[in-house]
């Protein structure tokens, strides 16, 4: 039972990070139909921002804030520079554009910063272990769970209680009509990217805090997982993205815990296969958005 509880917490922490990333992808996808491959690079940018802020001697909290500001700015800038020229194009065009942007950014990181991982000096107070009864919980893990929950709650409040949030939800239902209501498309899309950037930033900080270093490919793997999480939840559905993220986290942690030693290296392959197997039965994803097709 204790082991199970311990694994549950591990899954919450890992799944939470996937959920934040998948949510960031879904916010953008639901509004402009873009699957943003460069989402991972937003994570990486955040990592570098924190890294350099700490090297310049900023205190950790300021560095975190700086990292988030950079993430949001980078996301908005990315939309303005790279994605606005193809707005309204087919999903394929958008997908390929972001694929290219992502690859170019990685090469830039390699050349301008470094191809090697740079260590990030995370305060030692964060690397402790809290023991509650039989459970051992890393401080960072605990923080990561709390931060994830706070972010999800905050986003939920924003989407339901504020004017801008309601506009975002409306845009994800029907962007064309929302524009007819006099909302400005540019500001809605920019807000979507800002939120997406913020979520990627938070996920990036949690990731860096757990691994202690940044490299140009840092964001690639987690975002790959987030893609999978987003389709399993139902592309474009915000709650689906969160559910998919946690589900994938759970699957990975359970496989990690219970796969025989000889099969452990195959963990990711099994996880993705399981998830795609779900699609056999629910091709639209678990919490698919109800799209009403007018025939």
């Amino acid at each position, binding site marked *: 039972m204790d082991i199970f509880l311990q694994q549950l917490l591990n899954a919450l922490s890992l799944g939470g990070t996937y959920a934040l990333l998948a949510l960031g992808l879904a916010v953008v*996808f639901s509004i402009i*139909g873009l*699957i943003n491959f460069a989402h991972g690079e937003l994570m990486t940018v955040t990592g570098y921002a924190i890294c350099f802020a700490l090297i310049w001697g900023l205190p950790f909290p300021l560095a975190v804030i700086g990292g988030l500001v950079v993430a949001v700015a980078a996301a908005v800038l990315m939309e303005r520079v*790279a994605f606005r*020229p*193809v707005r309204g*194009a*087919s*999903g*394929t*065009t958008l*997908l*390929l*554009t972001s*694929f*290219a*942007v992502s*690859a*170019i950014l*990685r*090469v*830039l990181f*390699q*050349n301008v910063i470094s*191809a090697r991982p740079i260590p990030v000096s995370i305060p030692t107070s964060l690397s402790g272990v809290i023991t509650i009864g039989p459970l051992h919980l890393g401080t960072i893990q605990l923080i990561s769970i709390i931060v994830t929950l706070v972010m999800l709650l905050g986003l939920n409040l924003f989407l339901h209680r504020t004017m801008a949030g309601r506009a975002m939800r409306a845009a994800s239902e029907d962007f064309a009509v929302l524009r007819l209501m006099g909302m400005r498309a540019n500001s809605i899309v920019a807000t979507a990217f800002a939120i997406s950037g913020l979520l990627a930033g938070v996920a990036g900080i949690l990731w860096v805090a757990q691994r202690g270093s940044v490299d140009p490919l840092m964001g*690639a793997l987690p975002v*790959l997982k987030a*893609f*999978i999480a*987003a*389709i399993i939840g139902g*592309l474009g559905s915000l709650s689906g993205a969160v559910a998919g993220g946690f589900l994938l986290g759970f699957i990975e942690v359970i496989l990690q815990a219970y796969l025989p030693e000889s099969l452990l*290296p*195959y*963990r*990711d*392959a099994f996880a*993705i*296969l399981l*998830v*795609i*197997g779900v*699609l*056999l039965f629910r*091709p639209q*994803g678990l919490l698919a958005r109800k799209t009403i*097709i*007018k*025939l």
Partner: protein
Amino acid sequence: MPRIGMQAVKGTVVLALPLIALAIVAELFLPAALARLATLYLIYVTAVIGMQIYSGNSGIISFGHAGFMALGAYGSALLTIQPAVLSTSLPDLPSWLAVIAGGQTLPVGMLGALLVVGLVAALFGLPLARLGGAAASIATLGFLVIVHVTLVASVDITRGSQTFFGVPRGVSTWEALPVALVAVAVARIYRGSKGGLSLRAAREDEIAARASGVNVVRQRFIAWVLGGLVSGAAGVLLAHFLGAFSPKDFYFNLTFLLMSMLILGGISTVSGAVGGTALIVVMVDLLRRLEGGADVFGLQLPQVFGLTDIGVGVVILAVMYRLRDGLFGLREVDERLFPEPVVKAARPDPSNASDQISLSIKGVGRRFAGLVALEDVSFAVRPGLVTGLIGPNGAGKSTLINAISGVVPPSSGHVLLNGTDTALVPVHEVPMRGLGRTFQNIRLFRNLTVLENVTVAADAVARPNEDSRAAAMAALEVVGMQELAARPASSLPYGAQRRLEIARALALRPSFLLLDEPAAGMNPAETDALIVVLRQIRADHRIGLLVVEHDLKLIMRLCDHIVVLNKGQMIAEGTPEDIRANPAVIEAYIGKRRAAA
């Protein structure tokens, strides 16, 4: 047996000639380094064509084909590896594999590898084929990761992330050329075949494709496996070209490179794959020379890692921003150079109509959560007559149409089409059982020609040895559009688009035709022309027409029998005269007080 048209033969020849010429020039006249580049080009062409077969026809971008190359490469390498190397580099090979591994010839390696590729493609294709659009793309990305992780993890068989070496290098231009030529032929024939055409139709409009009898899931599956085999063959060639490789050689960098080749030429054509690959291979070779920091006109350039990646990325962006259909556009080179001759119309033998031609709606009801959209509607559409379905907004007309065509099954009651309950067969089978339909918002296969639009439907019901293109032409004749056969559907004026939809539905040789607001948005002249066409269809084909329309004048002029819905219930049924005089109908349309006055 796939349809091998003259056009596919012409197309194969047009693309094969430059490849053959290149091979000859490379082997006989070029220095070794350039000859190697030519070989590499032929290998990449094969791989990109594999992607094109799936992505080009289905419209789903694939990230997975580098994974097929990896499977092909490792599969063949294991079979052909030098036995001396095998025993030292892979001492822990499982015994079942050790029996067949090592020492085989390249053709055996190719065959074995393709067997593995085909099997894996089929297994993964089962869930994948059910997905469309972005979700399918991400699933192919998942496939790439699965293959990569598995190769890295299977240390006993693949040496994990370490280099796999000792593979006999036996691939030069001469070996790569025939494989590339086969790839071109397969892709070009598939594109024009019944399966390829119907998949391209589904790419343009999945719903309309299903309504034209296309089994979209099956066609996606076939294209995925076929494309996988072709890319797998390219992987085999690459393995024997390089002699040593590791899993990372078949991961994102390769995917990115293949993608740029496909995109630059244009994803929809085989010509694009052949042309785009050539340009990218040359560009990458030039950039690679600069990468190490070259000396250009006395200027010492700095060393830049990944210059090729930036180049490839910029090409993709440029294409996306400026030239979305790629350099070769939507039509093959041969289709531009040698347009196909006009197809002669030949009306197919009338369907040996079953004795029971009937479309009856029996007690159909539909609830959405608490809302009753339709309640206990019963009537029959009679062959050779025009039945009109009218009703104010929200009367339940669309719900009824969806129930009849099997898209949204009724929650109570049945729709019996020639004896079949339409709720019990897949949506794409309903048209084959005798129901053609058109859509309220026009749904054409926009980037296909007028003839191709109709051929998709004719193919779905064609009997063996029947020329479905001639049948399609005959359907076009009915609506008076045979002169427009070669035009892209998207270039037609509005009225013609509506008539094309009718021709497409007619090509299904239906016993019943469901027309959803056929006159919406038409001007009076177009409406008159439509009425002529519909009357002729009724007279010539003995088809039962069910027309849903807001235009009451049209309904009154055209229909023999009218059904009126209001608030989900059938409130009247009868001849136009009956309906005109029916107080319940007048009340539903005009309101109670006015009606009384």
